């Protein structure tokens, strides 16, 4: 990644981080907010920063990074620019897993059931998409596989919510289909962060293999890259990162599509370098989108997933048009 791009993303990320601590229903001075992180200031201030805004900021960064790197990894391995956790249904499958363990009481007995449910769902989703579309399959096949997985996971989620004992459950489908970070707390950070980090690190190790694959499968194998090993790490890493993200925030779509596309040219079209760049870009985009979700309307919040879809869907349309034009 070029130094300039890295610096720009880092500046945006730091600015977003500070804004995310300072802005909200109650305006807080940035220095006071930073002080509160280290335990300074009145109790109300520390409470707002440490228990409300910091967990939200951490989740936005971690989930954005997870979605960015998972999108880049899926695109690199499947050799398909439209592969993305939301588009291919991996996020929706993760949400289904989380919904089942959350609403039927398992999470009360064993809190880590939440990320594990998301992980299992996302794992099944990613495996299904791979089984249906395969590596280097046509874009149409991949998108159709995604439509099928999304439809199935969405229907099963709606079914689970209709059968859930809580009368609120059916009203909460939006929190899973178009997720967000409203009222998420440190509890959710501790539940999701270890899994997201493990998944992101696992996906980052794909860099050398994905670069080698650009030379063709034979060349990659002669360089000592095992396709099966690469695939296993891709499935496991995506399940961990996307599953845990979705389990605490619901589906936040298109981050993994938009970010790698914006950055691909900047890293010299090397899928390996794109991984870490997309993690950084995903974290930045998601944090800024979450700020917008909090600030656009003052008396209530827009779900983050609604905003990323509003950014991402037109982007997706533009990609479709581009693909049509390049067809003979």
């Amino acid at each position, binding site marked *: 990644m070029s130094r300039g791009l890295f610096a720009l993303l880092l500046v945006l990320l730091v600015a977003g981080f500070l804004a995310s601590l300072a802005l909200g*229903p*109650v305006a807080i001075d940035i220095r006071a907010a930073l002080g509160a992180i280290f335990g300074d200031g009145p109790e109300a201030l520390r409470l707002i920063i440490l228990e409300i805004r910091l967990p939200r900021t951490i989740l936005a960064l971690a989930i954005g990074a997870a979605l960015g790197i998972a999108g880049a990894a899926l695109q690199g391995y499947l050799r398909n620019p439209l592969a993305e956790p939301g588009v291919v249904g991996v996020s929706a499958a993760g949400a289904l897993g989380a919904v089942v363990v959350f*609403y039927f009481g398992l999470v009360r007995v064993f809190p880590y059931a939440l990320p594990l449910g998301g992980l299992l769902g996302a794992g099944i989703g990613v495996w299904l998409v791979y089984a249906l579309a395969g590596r280097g399959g046509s874009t149409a096949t991949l998108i159709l596989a995604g439509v099928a997985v999304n439809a199935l996971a969405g229907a099963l989620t709606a079914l689970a919510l209709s059968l*859930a004992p*809580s009368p*609120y459950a059916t009203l909460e489908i939006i929190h899973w289909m178009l997720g967000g970070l409203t009222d998420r*707390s440190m509890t959710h950070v501790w539940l999701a962060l270890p899994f997201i980090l493990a998944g992101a690190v696992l996906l980052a190790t794909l860099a050398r293999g994905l670069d080698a694959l650009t030379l063709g499968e034979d060349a990659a194998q002669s360089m000592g890259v095992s396709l099966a090993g690469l695939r296993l790490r891709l499935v496991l890493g995506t399940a961990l990162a996307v599953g845990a993200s979705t389990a605490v925030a619901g589906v936040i779509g298109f981050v993994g599509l938009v970010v790698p596309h914006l950055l691909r040219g900047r890293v010299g079209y090397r899928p390996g370098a794109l991984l870490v760049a997309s993690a950084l870009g995903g974290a930045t985009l998601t944090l800024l989108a979450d700020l917008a979700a909090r600030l656009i309307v003052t008396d209530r919040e827009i779900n983050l997933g609604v905003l990323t879809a509003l950014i991402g869907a037109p982007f997706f349309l533009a990609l479709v048009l581009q693909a049509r034009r390049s067809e003979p």
Partner: protein
Amino acid sequence: MFKQKNPHPEVAAPLGAALEGWTRARRRALAALALAAALLASPAQAEVSAKPQRIVSLNVCVDQLLLLMVDHRRIAALTVFATDRDWSNMPKEARGFRTTHGRAEEVLPLKPDLVIGGEYSAPDTIALLRRVGQRVEVMRLANSIEDVRNGMRWLGNIVGEPDEAEALVAALDRRLSAVARAVPPGPRPVLAFYNTSGYTAEPGTLADDVIRLAGFDNLAGRFGLRIGGRLNLEMIATARIDALIAIDTAETSASRAVETVQHPALARLAANRPFAAIPGRLWTCETPFVAEAAERLARLRAETERRR
């Protein structure tokens, strides 16, 4: 089906369009039957039959009032929520009754002589039941303590038990006036009520009325929240509040809405000041259980006074 704030579970059902065909014929038949019954009935029988004998409830508030007011043999069906601890104050008493999800197809075979729904009962179901000649009454939502009294009296009248209703109202009033009398003189402490998803007790709601009766100043009123307005944890953290209440989530089944009340920030706010968890079922309905909510608030008021 119902708004998210304190949803009264009401059983709702889609419209069964298939039933429309035989509506007119059935209505005519029913009218003929009613006429025949009126001609045949002696005055004494009319007295008895004036009291509905097969009552079906479509609303969990009505469920509880029926259990309190009428001979249980006159209850043809309660709602599925009647035995649910999340929503009903009388889950044990409600056991053993037939229950429905409030679908017209479940209600009609019970041949009820009175169906009682709530404001949030599925309008399609109520319209359908009425179209086939079924008598359906709809209980209003209670937005004040006066509404609670009126609601109980209203139900007592339509089920033919006005004396039972009066007795319940009198018992409620005795307990509420004890709460009002116990309020210490002096400035009112400010209380914040944090309900699911930040909903609260805005001015013009039953909960606001009870909070003020117990001698508190309601934070939602200070902020001038309108109906449907919400508080957020940051507002509560920075406002000067003397006491805090939230709904009791210990017994409720898991949901994102309930999870908002389990936020660690709220637990920390509650740890530093007088706090009470009040189950929503106590004061979302026009039942005598409103008195228990008021008494819990009165205890919190006394604790607040001690810690001032």
